[in-house]
């Protein structure tokens, strides 16, 4: 083991240590009076009591309710202390009585209660603090409006100011259980008179218990509880970027765009959010224009999203026909109070036509502060914008449009004798609408132009020319053209929206499916394999996942499975792991690699690099898919981070258990080494005065015991290190037993050992050395716990399923129910004489070695005569088959 290899984070241990010895606080948090906090607390307390915990009632306000009163009856109640204040005698919780009584768990209702002046602490939560410090667990109740940081918020919409508050820190250190009932039900209970209303609240009753207030309070309670739970978990591991409490009113939305300043917007949002202690969301409005973004733009958006999620913000993509529409709708839905946008760099011409998004937002949204960030000129792209590239296969759309116009012309010619000239114009609207809705705006406009030309040429007199003689027909022609333009505009817009909605729905489905797949993983390996498989499936690429190590990136999972990556790919992965930046094909670094690596990041480290590659060597991820990939990677990072945190926590727990065992071992070892040493020393002293054979025997026996004990310590170290190397060999049990007897003759001096092994016992395949130690420990154990002077018996039975070798002693036997427990490390039979030293190691070694060799161990009591039987069970697989007779001829 290298030093520092498995040491836990010292800070984490310190925090755990600080919490150790302190009582635990469990808070029953409610949205409003009457949700049933006290009831729930009592119900759980009853359960704890049943589980054997010493539960007492410190103070419980039953408000005269029979149900609640009945529940306190089963519990011991500490009588309240009488305190005289201004001539009146009031009853308060008797803190000193509880401390003196020192129960395992005390129930303290109404955490926010203010004590009568003259009490030790002005506030009840301070009493609770003292109880916790004394190592007593506390159950308590509190309503969300009593929380200090939310006091103003609650008052602002309930118009009831609560004077009794509890600091947020109390909540943060507590286990929280939200007692929640739907607002309708609460109002129902209120009407039935089941809720006790304090006088001051009764005045504002109608207002306070309105459904909208209750809903808001309920949301606050649930959010706050969730936040506290998260905070506790994060605190456990390390500082997190998303620190601080959330005030509840402010919500920030930042609109990010494809321009170079997007990350600046995100950082600004983070700063404002920190200042306001508000949650924030980065949103990108995906307009039809976004479909024509090049790779650079897509990458910028993805980078901004990435940054936002790293800094603790939420991210969202909203498809909409225009930035204004999408953003205002999203901001309203998210109930944003602060909106941050970059100053648009649109041309004057564009702004005249569309009016600036900023202007419209400021003018048309209310109750929202709009922050406009000027983006410096040099940040802006120098060239082109907004010119839609022709979609692939566009010429086909125009050809089809032309054919539709031609078809209408043919039909109209056929029907010309029954149609009025104006109705022919109507017929031409058909190809316009079809083209616009099928192929988009420009084919629609093209259809309009083609239709009006055809109409003019074939039907308007003079037929066969593009001139128009009748002014009335000029109007018809213009109307046709106008209708064509407008129709195509709307049809195209409807189609775009449908497209966007469709692609967004697909993306959301992909993300949801991804998350579902990841949550089924139970180990790191499974999770990494799931990430690889899912990304490979969604993008139709090959994937690989690598984690850092001191020896470079390690390939942990791949889909389809892969054993190793080429040097250049490893270099790219290394770069990604080192810098937390993408590397490989399609990135800025090591582009010669066939693979593109993206980092999976936690707040403080890069956990892994996800590589993607395509067999045909193209860029692995299309630019329009980059955002989806980023979302998936973010999600994967979160899950992976969480899993690693959980693993860490488990490791710490295991470590503590190991430390505990080690401490137990040390104390046990020093005792067990000193006992024989003391005996030897005493014998030596005795020899100096008068040498006797008895003293010599004593020395020999104790020396043998010491030797045995040291051997056991070494063996145990081997078992615990998991470093048992087996050399399996066929052995004759007769030899094994004889060998063990030879090595225990000094320990078993004066004891008869009966060996009852059948002559035809088959041989077994074991590690001779380990098996020797197993037998020695069993014999030693029998010698130690069997009554002096009684024989020890070794027997073996062959049966259809294998073979059992038993060591039997005569004595008190094992305490009933402890038959298996005796094999645990450091287990020593309760009440057994301490002078029978042995650290309880012997049987643990028996089990450890036997397990390693595949031998079963059993312990049972004998019926007559009384005593213990320890059995070694060899399955058929360990038994050596009869050998070829010819070999012995």
């Amino acid at each position, binding site marked *: 083991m290298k030093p520092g290899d498995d040491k836990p984070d010292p800070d984490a241990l310190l925090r755990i240590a600080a919490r150790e010895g302190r009582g635990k606080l469990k808070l029953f948090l409610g949205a409003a009076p009457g949700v049933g906090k006290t009831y729930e607390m009592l119900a759980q307390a009853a359960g704890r009591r049943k589980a054997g915990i010493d539960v007492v009632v410190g103070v419980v306000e039953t408000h005269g309710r029979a149900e609640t009163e009945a529940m306190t009856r089963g519990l011991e109640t500490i009588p309240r202390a009488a305190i005289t204040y201004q001539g009146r005698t009031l009853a308060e919780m008797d803190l000193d009585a509880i401390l003196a009584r020192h129960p395992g768990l005390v129930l303290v209702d109404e955490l926010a209660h203010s004590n009568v002046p003259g009490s030790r602490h002005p506030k009840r939560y301070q009493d609770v603090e003292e109880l916790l410090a004394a190592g007593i667990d506390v159950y308590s109740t509190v309503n969300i409006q009593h929380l200090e940081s939310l006091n103003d918020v609650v008052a602002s919409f309930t118009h009831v100011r609560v004077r009794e508050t509890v600091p947020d820190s109390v909540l943060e250190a507590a286990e929280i259980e939200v007692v929640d009932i739907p607002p309708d039900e609460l109002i129902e209970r209120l009407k039935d008179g089941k809720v006790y209303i304090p006088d001051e609240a009764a005045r504002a009753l109608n207002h306070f218990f309105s459904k909208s207030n209750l809903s808001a309070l309920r949301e606050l309670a649930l959010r706050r509880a969730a936040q506290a739970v998260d905070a506790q978990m994060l605190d456990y591991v390390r500082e997190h970027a998303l620190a601080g409490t959330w005030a509840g009113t402010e919500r920030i939305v930042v609109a990010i765009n494809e321009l170079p300043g997007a990350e600046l917007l995100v950082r600004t949002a983070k700063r404002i959010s920190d200042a306001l202690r508000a949650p924030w969301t980065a949103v990108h409005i995906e307009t039809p224009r976004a479909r024509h973004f090049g790779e650079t733009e897509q990458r910028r958006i993805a980078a901004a999203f990435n940054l936002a999620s790293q800094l603790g913000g939420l991210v969202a993509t909203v498809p909409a026909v225009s930035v204004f529409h999408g953003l205002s709708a999203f901001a309203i839905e998210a109930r944003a109070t602060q909106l941050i946008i970059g100053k648009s760099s649109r041309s004057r011409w564009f702004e005249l036509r569309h009016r600036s998004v900023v202007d419209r937002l400021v003018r048309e949204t209310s109750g929202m502060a709009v922050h406009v960030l000027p983006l410096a000129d040099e940040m802006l792209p120098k060239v082109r914008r907004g010119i839609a590239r022709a979609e692939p296969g566009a010429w086909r759309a125009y050809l089809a449009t032309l054919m539709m116009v031609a078809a209408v012309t043919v039909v109209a010619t056929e029907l010309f004798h029954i149609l009025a000239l104006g109705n022919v114009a109507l017929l031409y609207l058909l190809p316009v609408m079809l083209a616009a809705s099928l192929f988009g705006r420009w084919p629609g406009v093209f259809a309009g132009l083609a239709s009006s030309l055809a109409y003019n040429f074939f039907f308007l007199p003079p037929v066969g020319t593009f001139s128009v003689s009748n002014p009335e027909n000029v109007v018809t022609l213009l109307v046709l053209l106008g209708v064509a333009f407008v129709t195509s505009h709307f049809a195209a817009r409807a189609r775009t929206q449908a497209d966007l909605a469709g692609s967004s729905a697909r993306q959301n489905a992909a993300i949801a499916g991804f998350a579902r797949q990841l949550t089924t993983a139970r180990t790191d390996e499974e999770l990494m394999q799931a990430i690889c498989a899912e990304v490979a499936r969604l993008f139709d690429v090959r994937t690989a996942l690598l984690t850092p190590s001191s020896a470079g990136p390690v390939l942990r999972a791949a889909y389809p499975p892969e054993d190793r990556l080429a040097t250049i790919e490893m270099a790219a992965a290394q770069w990604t792991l080192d810098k937390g930046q993408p590397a490989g094909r399609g990135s800025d670094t090591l582009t010669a690699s066939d693979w593109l690596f993206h980092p999976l990041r936690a707040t403080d480290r890069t956990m892994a690099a996800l590589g993607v590659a395509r067999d045909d060597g193209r860029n692995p991820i299309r630019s329009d898919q980059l955002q989806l990939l980023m979302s998936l990677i973010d999600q994967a990072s979160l899950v992976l981070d969480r899993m690693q945190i959980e693993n860490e926590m488990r490791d710490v727990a295991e470590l503590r258990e190991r430390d505990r065992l080690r401490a137990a071992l040390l104390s046990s070892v020093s005792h067990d080494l000193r006992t024989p040493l003391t005996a030897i020393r005493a014998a030596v002293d005795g020899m100096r005065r008068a040498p006797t054979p008895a003293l010599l025997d004593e020395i020999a026996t104790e020396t043998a015991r010491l030797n045995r004990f040291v051997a056991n310590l070494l063996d145990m170290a081997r078992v615990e290190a998991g470093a048992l190397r087996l050399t399996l060999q066929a052995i*004759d049990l*007769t030899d094994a037993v004889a060998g063990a007897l*030879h090595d225990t003759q000094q320990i078993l001096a004066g004891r008869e050992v009966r060996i009852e092994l059948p*002559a035809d016992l088959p041989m077994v395949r074991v590690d001779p050395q380990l098996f020797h130690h197993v037998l020695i420990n069993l014999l030693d154990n029998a010698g130690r716990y069997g009554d002096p002077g009684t024989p020890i018996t070794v027997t073996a039975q062959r049966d259809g399923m294998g073979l059992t070798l038993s060591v039997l002693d005569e004595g008190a036997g094992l305490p009933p129910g402890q038959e298996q427990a005796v094999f645990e490390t450091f287990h020593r039979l309760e009440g057994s004489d301490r002078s029978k030293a042995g650290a309880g190691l012997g049987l643990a070694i028996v089990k450890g070695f036997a397990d390693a060799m595949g031998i079963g161990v059993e312990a049972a009591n004998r019926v007559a005569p009384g005593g213990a039987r320890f059995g070694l069970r060899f399955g058929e697989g360990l038994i050596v088959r009869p*050998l070829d007779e010819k070999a012995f001829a």
Partner: protein
Amino acid sequence: MTIPALILVVDDEPPIRRLLRGALERAGYAVIEAGSAKEAMALLAARDPAVVLLDLGLPDRDGIELIPLIRKRSSATILIVSARDATEEKVAALDLGAADYVTKPFDTEELLARVRAALRHRLTADGGQTVLTAGGVTIDLLGHRVTRDGEAVHLTPKEFVALAELARFPGRVITHQQLLRAVWPNDHERHVEYLRVLIRGIRQKLEADPARPSLVVNELGIGYRLIGSA
């Protein structure tokens, strides 16, 4: 024996050397001591001891490496006396030419018995003993005869070969490989279990209590030893 046999004790721990010297001198041997491999090799050349008691954990050199060197320069019988108790280590030492292996902490009587066995072998090798008795059993190596309490015992040819191999070096551990080579010279694939079956057969015929063998005893994971006296 008129001239006491000379024994070289190689160990870096003075208390152990003192202990061994005391025990060996009481048994009538002459003792010289070395605290390192270098000293040992010098004494080996200068004094030509009959037996070397060799500790494996020496300060300047691993004792295992020393075995072939001693074998090359001297006819001394090598007995390993070491705290190392891994089976592989023992087998390696025996294969390299050590005659026996005693694990620390040792039983002094047992150690002296092994020394006696080693010296006896030197006599046998020098052209002595062909008949061996142990308890009620007599083994005549040249006459291919084995008797128990005066009555002839019938052993199969392979059983006799194995017993003879053990009897050639009475008191010394013979490794599984040595025995397997002797009994099945043309079959290198034989496993230890064949040997175990063979030994069991011998015990059934020769041991007073086959469940507690006292003639042919097992040496854990290494081989067998014939307990007997010439």
